[in-house]
């Protein structure tokens, strides 16, 4: 209460928010926000978040923060390439789903390109990542094979999972993209277990798990946070806060919308960052990754963006407040970051255009290729249930 009471004094009339500082030990932590919600109103609610997303992210790196431009031009280009690839594949998938040429449940990642790429930038191939159904950005940023992912989405034998897992369960073990789960929150304890393995190996590899803001409500999240902190595991909990869980905005399901603040309950380091700013995100991820590599335990990172599309590839989006969405779209990460790179002269426009067209060609090629790949043969039906497929005979 102390911190938020102070904050309220400083910013009278604004919703209480957390202050953010470096503790004596150099870890960034966030004090808890104990603001209580408006009293529960048993009436039809207006579906607008209590805070606008701008308010939620104002306490990230300011424009004048010197560390803001601490990424090398090479890293910025890597970030951009990764973001652009994610956006290109995402757009193509949505197009195919809408056109009815791909009969799959898919979950767009527009708005997350920068934050996914920022995570990927800080990871080595040996590091591991566990994602959700909204996995495309994570998969590509972690370096998964584009061909294997696209083929998987089309259910082909050459897919990363022989076409048997599908869009919601993308994985590419070969690059540490371990698994994607379709059940909210359920990948989090699995990531904790990968952290146990990393710790027992005595290696400095780290594990990242991504999940939505909505996943913070579920039990598995809570159990995992406690365990990871208790055992000081090298796990980074990346909460992709796009401020919606399907049709429900965060303020309507979270007693406290200060998600980063929840880490305090587990004595875990945490930070909130503007997920529409890939550089700010990359720098914050770096702090967390380094902490984990040093054996100093887990971090909870709340990456704040806004969902720029419907929940799934085909779902309705009319319920989202138009003005909030319009403001969020102004910060659409790929065009925004591209503009910034050009303005700051990070690379000549021609080089950026070259990247864009290279990626467009790569993506086209992957989709064309996938459509020519074979489907898994009937014999694949009973393989991979157990190591020994004979066990399934006759069942």
């Amino acid at each position, binding site marked *: 209460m102390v911190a938020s009471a102070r904050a309220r004094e400083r910013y009278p009339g604004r919703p209480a928010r957390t202050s953010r500082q470096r503790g004596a030990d150099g870890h960034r932590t966030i004090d808890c926000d104990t603001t209580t919600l408006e009293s529960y109103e*048993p009436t039809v609610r207006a579906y607008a978040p209590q805070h606008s997303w701008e308010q939620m992210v104002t306490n990230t790196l300011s424009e004048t923060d010197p560390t803001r431009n601490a990424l090398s031009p090479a890293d910025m280009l890597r970030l951009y390439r990764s973001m652009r690839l994610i956006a290109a594949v995402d757009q193509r998938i949505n197009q195919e789903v809408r056109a009815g040429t791909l009969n799959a449940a898919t979950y767009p990642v527009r708005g997350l390109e920068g934050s996914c790429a920022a995570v990927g930038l800080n990871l080595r191939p040996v590091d591991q990542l566990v994602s959700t159904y909204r996995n495309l950005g994570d998969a590509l940023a972690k370096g998964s094979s584009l061909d294997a992912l696209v083929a998987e989405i089309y259910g082909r034998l050459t897919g990363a999972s022989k076409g048997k897992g599908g869009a919601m369960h993308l994985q590419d073990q070969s690059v540490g993209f371990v698994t994607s789960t*379709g*059940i909210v929150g359920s990948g989090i304890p699995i990531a904790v277990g990968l952290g146990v393995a990393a710790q027992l190996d005595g290696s400095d590899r780290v594990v990242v798990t991504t999940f939505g803001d909505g*996943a913070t409500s*579920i039990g598995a999240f809570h159990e995992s946070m406690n365990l990871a902190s208790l055992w000081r595991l090298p796990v980074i909990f990346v909460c992709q806060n796009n401020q919606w*869980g399907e049709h429900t905005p965060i303020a309507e399901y979270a007693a406290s919308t200060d998600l980063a603040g929840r880490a305090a309950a587990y004595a875990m380091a945490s930070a909130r960052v503007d997920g529409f700013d890939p550089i700010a995100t990359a720098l914050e991820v770096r702090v967390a990754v380094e902490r984990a590599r040093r054996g100093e335990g887990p971090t909870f990172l709340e990456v704040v963006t806004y969902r720029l599309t419907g929940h799934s590839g085909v779902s309705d989006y009319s319920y989202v407040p138009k003005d909030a969405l319009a403001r969020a779209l102004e910060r659409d990460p790929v065009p925004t970051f591209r503009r910034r790179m050009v303005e700051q002269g990070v690379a000549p426009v021609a080089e950026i255009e070259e990247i864009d067209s290279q990626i467009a060609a790569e993506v086209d090629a992957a989709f064309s290729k996938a459509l020519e790949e074979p489907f898994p043969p009937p014999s694949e*039906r*009973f393989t991979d249930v157990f190591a020994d497929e004979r066990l399934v005979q006759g*069942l």
Partner: protein
Amino acid sequence: MTMAAALNSALDHAMELDDKVIIIGEDVADPAGGVLKVTKGLSTKYGTGRVRATPIAEQAIVGAAIGAALGGYRPVAEVMYMDFTAVALDQIVNHAAKLRYMSGGASPVPLTIRTCIGMQRFGAQHAQSLEAWFMHTPGIKVVMPSTATEAKGLLASCIADDDPCLFVENFAMVFSQKGDVPVGEFRIPLGEAAVKRAGSDVSVITYGAAVHTALEAAEQAAAAGISLEVIDLRTLMPLDWDTVLQSVSLTRRAIVLHDATMFCGPGAEIAARIHEELFEELLAPVKRLGAAYTPAPYAPSGLPFLPTAADVLAGAKQLTG
């Protein structure tokens, strides 16, 4: 009227009739009105006090519904997909199903849990038919309709029932099933099967979406000169043994068909019981058809998972051949 609209109508009437009926689940309030729009309009009509959209927290959803039931309400809790019942299973099987017994009758739990079987195109975690788990759990009723009208009448009965009921919908059927659904309040009693097509050669015992597989097979079989009787169980607990055994005692041949995994599935119980009761009458052993012993393969792969009309037809030919 679609099955979605029929379910909505059942909920609407139940809430109108009894202000103890409440709804708890993710996205159930307007404007969403449920991800499949089944609860559309209800929060607007009855308020968000009675139609409560929740966090993503299935243990709390089912647990809170149990508590509200103990507190005098008739909650209808929604668990979006049947696969997610695994997240809330402790509340369902160890509490909802047992509380009446463990309290010597002092704590009935008049709770309805609505859930929905998904589709193979979602992948292996959104496509399971898990009714066998609940049939195996003493103390909870299990209901799986196959048409819009029955969905309405059976859901109304579940809500009015003094025992916990698991009401299982089906993603595809919620939209594809349409019918002339009676307006106004009406109920179909739990525990009564329906003969969906009369026949004399083979009894096909089934429920839920597979009823339509069976009816399709019956058409094809008729063309091939085999007469299938299609029994829609509608309720799996209590199960209408009278109708099943009477049909099989006449046809003397039976197929049990469902979309759940065959191994250790509902069909095992039904087949075993038919053998026990009609051992002398049967001309051939009961044939079981169910999902393969595999997680659901992703649909675009084209790998088969559920039994088809062709499988039923082949089974019928084998039994009569």
